[in-house]
């Protein structure tokens, strides 16, 4: 489908595709097998200027928005979901600073995030605070010009590799969401350490790690917005990054579809290429239709956000839930078309199926997304009464 990208958007997409095909795809299996963070590929993306596509020009970025970010994530995901999420997670850590940071905070951190010189990460999840985000136990206690952080964050993407962390803590656990407060914490701050590195089903080259805060003194100047605004910081950030997860899902699904379609034209059984069997042909048709529908929703949502609409939580959740469910179905069907070969690690589709699964879970499970969409639908219905 022709989405009428601007010349600059085409340029961004084409460069991301070239890097994905020439640099990422040949090494995706190797990084997956080794569960090794793809630093040299991150360097290639940084040198290409892709970390800054969504960052305003005044902070060294290209001045694009969520849509440009989605284009890059989609292209990288066609080759490797793990490289794509490592790239995208830096935007997840950086968006809170761009949206809620002071001029000083933005000037201090955004140029490095835009150039890719330093990776960013976002830390909200804890062992007892997943979907129930306001149940966090990491505390921030004011002490003069500092806040003292104590607690443990779990499953933090880019944990250990990133240098700039947006961390959500609570200044008063009894206040729930209203006690939540966001801080920028730099790697190397005394009292800030890294714990267990997770072994995952998919996106194995990406880093998913524990952050441990023990009497970690963070300058009060590193607080984003003010005390009690942490929940809002997180939710406004997710509204802008969920389309990115959706784009990751579209990319993984497209990658699986491309490979399944090619395989179907090569594999011969009963003396025919299997693409000539209607059973396979119709599977490919359904896969392609679903991928295109998901892409259209993701692009429309991203463009709506960039055009300046104020309320897009519902659409961001719709894009995320729809695209990730499509990715799971399409990658599963791709493995089916490959048959026994698809189940083997010698072929790329089993990795895509493993990588797809996480898109239904992270940045809000699809159940949470449906709650967001549902409550928006009900609210709209009540308003019309």
């Amino acid at each position, binding site marked *: 489908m022709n989405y009428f990208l601007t010349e600059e958007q085409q340029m961004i997409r084409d*460069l991301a595709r070239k890097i994905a095909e020439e640099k990422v795809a040949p090494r995706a299996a190797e990084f997956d097998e080794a569960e090794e963070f793809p630093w040299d590929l991150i360097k290639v993306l940084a040198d*290409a200027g892709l970390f800054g596509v969504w960052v305003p020009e005044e902070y060294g970025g290209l001045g694009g928005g969520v849509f440009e970010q989605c284009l890059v994530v989609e292209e990288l995901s066609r080759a490797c979901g793990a490289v794509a999420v490592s790239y995208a997670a830096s935007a997840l850590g950086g968006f809170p600073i761009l949206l809620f940071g002071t001029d000083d905070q933005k000037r201090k951190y955004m140029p490095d995030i835009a150039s890719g010189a330093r990776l960013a990460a976002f830390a909200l999840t804890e062992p007892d605070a997943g979907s129930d985000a306001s149940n966090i136990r990491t505390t921030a206690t004011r002490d003069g010009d500092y806040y003292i952080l104590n607690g443990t964050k779990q499953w933090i993407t880019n944990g250990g590799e990133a240098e700039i962390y947006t961390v959500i803590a609570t200044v008063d656990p009894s206040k729930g969401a209203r006690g939540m407060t966001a801080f920028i914490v730099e790697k190397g701050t005394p009292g800030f350490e890294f714990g267990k590195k997770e072994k995952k089903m998919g996106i194995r080259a990406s880093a998913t790690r524990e952050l441990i805060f023990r009497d970690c003194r963070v300058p009060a100047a590193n607080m984003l917005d003010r005390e009690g605004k942490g929940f809002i910081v997180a939710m406004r950030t997710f509204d802008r990054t969920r389309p990115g997860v959706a784009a990751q899902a579209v990319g993984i699904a497209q990658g699986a579809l491309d490979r399944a379609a090619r395989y179907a034209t090569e594999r011969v059984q009963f003396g025919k290429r299997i693409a000539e069997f209607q059973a396979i042909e119709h599977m490919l048709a359904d896969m392609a239709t679903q991928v295109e529908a998901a892409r259209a929703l993701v692009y429309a949502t991203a463009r709506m956000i960039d055009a300046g609409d104020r309320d897009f939580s519902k659409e961001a959740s719709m894009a995320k839930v729809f695209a990730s469910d499509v990715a799971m179905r399409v990658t599963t069907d791709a493995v089916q078309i490959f048959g026994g070969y698809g189940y083997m690690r010698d072929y790329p589709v089993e990795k895509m199926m493993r990588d797809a699964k996480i898109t239904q879970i992270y940045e809000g499970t699809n159940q949470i997304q449906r709650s967001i969409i549902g409550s928006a639908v009900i609210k709209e219905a009540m308003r019309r009464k």
Partner: protein
Amino acid sequence: MNVAVLIKQVPETTDVKINRETNTLMREGVASIINPFDMYAIEEALRIREQHGGKVTVITMGPPQAEEALRQALALGADEAVLLSDRAFAGADTLATSYTLAKAIEKLGGFDLVICGKQAADGDTAQVGPEVAENLDLPHVTYVRKIEEISLGSPDSDGGGSRGAPGFIRVQRMTEEGYEVIESPLPTLITVVKEINEPRMPSIKGMLRAKKAAITLWTARDLGVDASRVGLAGSPTRVIRVFTPEQRRRGEIIEGATVQEKVRTLVAKLKETHLV
């Protein structure tokens, strides 16, 4: 350190079609790219600039659409680009091409180093680099796989060739058996092989800059060339036949009904050649 890189735009395919009547390359309907070997030349020039400073100038001779190849080189980081384009240049063989390129290098005022890819992926002659060097009366080293050292020497006092201590370059030149270490005074011309580096990707900012960059266009008149030495008129080469040459060293598969028989034949052959 000022470096010139000579590049060529070629069809994006290894399966080049040849016009059987004229025995020249058919370029119609095939997407064009920078000759892959020239990508290593551009990369090496950029690395030299990063280390020694100076400027990288990319030069190509070709039809107007060769401008696209120059923009790609600018996106990678080249400072300046020069397109030599004129109907009079059409149909040039390597002799006429190298004469024209050499005239452009002279007009630009000379360089400390000229880098070319080892050969073009379409014509495969590997002649243009050395011929440019001959035209400019420069030394040259072909098939460079590594630059070991560059010494700029003492700076040129007035550009009139009155250098105190001339600079030099020491390179590894790939051969079939291994490599040779060659030192050459600067300025010089080298052609590079793919082992020399891994070319970088362009950056978005580089691509945006390249889109707006001014490209110098020079015609035959701008270069002040001798009309009888450019284009078809200056090209004595006549292609009689195009074919894949026989390999110089050939393997031999020993036939035989049984393993024992094959081994006997092998041992006999080894004795025959005094290898055992």
